[in-house]
């Protein structure tokens, strides 16, 4: 499904490094000394059984949680106590396991919100909706329409997202993340609760995003076949610890992974 050759990929180029990260809530240890890296342009999967700390890991990366210990280096800069909006400004976008869309807004507006960071027109132009404000609005609308076209959702352009079926909501959420033109795209179970056709579409979108725009993707996914097809490298977590890290082939044949995860799940 995936061409083996990735010509535009600089494999030595680390975009994000997680070093020895631990996270505790009171007495509960969500993560313990996890280290791995994400390279520019790759699709990195994080897998593991339920409660392995995958979502907590993503939450640490984009500043929603702050690691109790260890450090996260993004684009060569150390980040420990970073607010999520700072992470967003730094180029990290994110989708969620349970879809975190703005329910009352239309698809169009949801994706437009994703452009907020790129919009610069000042308050007074906004007030008049004139000059730079409206020019900017039109320019970004064009970008948003391209995303809508890319995700094949023109028919729901004006539908409030709260009324959309789950699969489409996930697509809109991806659209909103893409609108941020992120360097690193974090996807938390992008295919959960989808039927086969929707999964195939979503997989195609992820690959196209990765290849066309060179966006680095880190994703959590349960469906092993998807992970193996999609990702360049896989990190396996169990009970908040890393138990394996490597190409899908390596991970697949790792004894601990088979024990901890594959053996259980299948």
């Amino acid at each position, binding site marked *: 499904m995936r*061409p083996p050759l990735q010509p535009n990929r600089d494999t030595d180029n680390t975009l994000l490094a997680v070093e020895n990260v631990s996270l505790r809530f009171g007495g509960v240890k969500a993560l313990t000394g996890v280290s791995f890296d994400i390279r520019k342009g790759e699709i990195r999967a994080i897998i593991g059984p339920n409660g392995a700390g995958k979502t907590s890991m993503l939450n640490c990366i984009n500043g929603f949680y702050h690691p109790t210990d260890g450090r996260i280096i993004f684009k060569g800069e150390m980040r420990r106590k970073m607010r999520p909006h700072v992470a967003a400004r730094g180029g990290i976008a994110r989708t969620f396991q349970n879809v975190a869309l703005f329910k009352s807004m239309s698809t*169009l507006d949801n994706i437009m919100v994703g452009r907020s960071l790129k919009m610069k027109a000042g308050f007074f132009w906004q007030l008049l909706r004139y000059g730079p404000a409206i020019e900017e609005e039109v320019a970004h*609308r064009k970008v948003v329409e*391209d995303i809508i076209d890319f995700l094949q959702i023109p*028919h729901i352009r004006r539908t409030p997202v709260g009324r959309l079926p789950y699969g489409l909501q996930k697509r809109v959420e991806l659209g909103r993340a893409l609108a941020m033109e992120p360097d690193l795209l974090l996807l938390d179970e992008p295919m959960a609760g989808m039927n086969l056709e929707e999964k195939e579409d979503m997989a*195609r979108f992820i690959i196209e995003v990765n*290849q066309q725009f060179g966006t680095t993707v880190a994703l959590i996914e349960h469906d092993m076949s998807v992970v193996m097809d999609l990702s360049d490298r896989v990190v396996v977590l169990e009970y908040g610890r890393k138990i394996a890290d490597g190409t899908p082939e390596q991970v697949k044949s790792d004894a601990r992974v088979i024990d901890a995860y594959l053996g259980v799940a299948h």
Partner: protein
Amino acid sequence: MTATADSREDTFPKLIVSNARIRPHRTAFRHKDLGIWQSWTWAEVHHIVRAYAVGLLDLGLTRGGRIAVIGHNRPRLYWTIMAAQWIGATPIPVYADSVADEMAYVLAHAEVTHAAVQDQEQVDKLLSVASRLPQLEHILYDEVRGLRDYDHHRLHSIETVIQGGSEQLRSPARQAALQAELEKGKGSDLAVILYTSGTTGRPKGVMLTFESVIAAAEIGCNFDKLNETDEIIAYLPIAWVGDHIFSYAQAILSGLCVNCPESPETIADDRREVGATYIFAPPRVFESMLTLTMVRMEDASALKKRMFTFFIDHATKVGERILNGDVQVGWWDRAIWHLGNVLVYAPLRNRYGMTRLKVGYTAGEAIGPEIFRFYRSIGVNLKQLYGQTEASVYITMQPDGEIHADTVGKPAPRVEIRIAENGEVLYRSPGVFLGYYKDDEKTAETKTPDGFVHSGDAGFFDAAGHLKIIDRANDVGRLQDGSLFPPKYIENKLKFYPNVKEVVCFGSERDYVGCFINIDLVAVSSWAERTGVTYASYQELAGHPLVYDMIERHVDEVNRSLAGEPRMGGAQIKRFLILHKELDADDGELTRTQKVRRGFIAERYADLIQALYDGSQEKMVTTEITFEDGRKGTISARVKIRDMTLHSVESGPALREAAE
């Protein structure tokens, strides 16, 4: 201004040049894309087409070559036709929903070297039959989605071809060469080959010259006084002659604007947004619009429903007469009609996207008189015309004020009509075709030495000089007892009920008339919902006794009306059955234009026909079906057969020839 082609502008490319000169800033094309109606003026189109033509030359398409055009209505596909014609190549529009096999036949038969297609779906189709198309060199596509990773040796995006051409055009030499190509084109050149998916046999390529297409377009433009302010929505297959004449030829000739919808699924919304002034559609479009109207009104509140019914009834009474300018209509009736116009008719027209409509045409098949009158009664200037691909559409048209639901009008301007001995309609006009591509035998069969064309339809002129078409000339048969059996005529009567989608009648050389009926899923499922009939599948619904009862009532009414017409009384339906599956073009039961393929059906369902005539009450059948993705499967059903009590035939003149 009415369009009359300058004698020098005898090809479409020349007309485009003149449009760019006369009306450079008028909008030529619109396409709903990325949320808005992207627009191109004639000047822009002119520029693009020139660049495109150069690009095509560079891809090896030359004078006398052939390029297939496959896809839904997209500006770039229309521009492909323009660009190809500019350099003297012949465009061959192909039905977008043809399965790969059909497409392979047409492309191989036409020996195309190039194909311009809409998207990945069509590219995949072509690649899947590439081995049968050794002469196909290049494929051009409009939408890049999904095609990025394909091998681009023989694959090109139309956009880049145009860009390449545009760059080439900077050189004066290329400009001059292009100008020369334009001037080389002349009216007698082959403009287009349209493949008709005839009701029998393989498609035939109808060759039309610029002269005939332009002449035909002129007939239409002058008849309805079309000009550059008109808007048409292009959503019918580009391979259909109707679309080619209306959305291509007439658009270029009169400079009107062609609007391409976003996708086939959004056509209803797009049609409403555009609010075309000029439309052309086969009867089924109007039928399904009316069916949807009725279905929706079923869900309206009681008060609204009563209001709707009241005003629609009133419109049925006087609306058509008001539209025809009948001065006899009383002021009170007029007042009520106008009140209805405010409350019902105008809003309805708005929902149909017909608010700005000047004139609409329906053709291709007979339209139900009720449906036809419905639209006219609510103030839609709908007219019928009778046409054929071989005539570049126009044979007869309905002039304003002389519109009758059951005739197709008077001969169109510059068209001569002759009724043959056997009732067949023959015509001659400037629009008639050159011949069938690579089929001289067939051409000779169809075209008489003096230039008349056999239409294949039987018909007659009524007292007012309007042509009435009964049936395909070859299909009008006789029962064993010698009574006349015009299957289409009977079928159409039945099809005018919203619950009936398709009918196939049998009776030629038999004792009585029997028929297959296809129910209309939209109408019948809505009826089922209201009456509480539950069903799990189409098959179950079709076999439901209550559905049978309902259809039986319709058949009885048709029989009664047939009995009322002396010549037709013998053709009453004695036995019928409801088919367990929908007739489908993918299974070869319908043509791509949704016409019934009688012979094929008779063969395929021979068992059922036998059952119709051997008196059995039901029959077990197994049928092979084709899924959308091309996979095959089978379904089985026990199909029941109903007997009808026939109405007594009124005594009248002995049976005579249908066509006079």
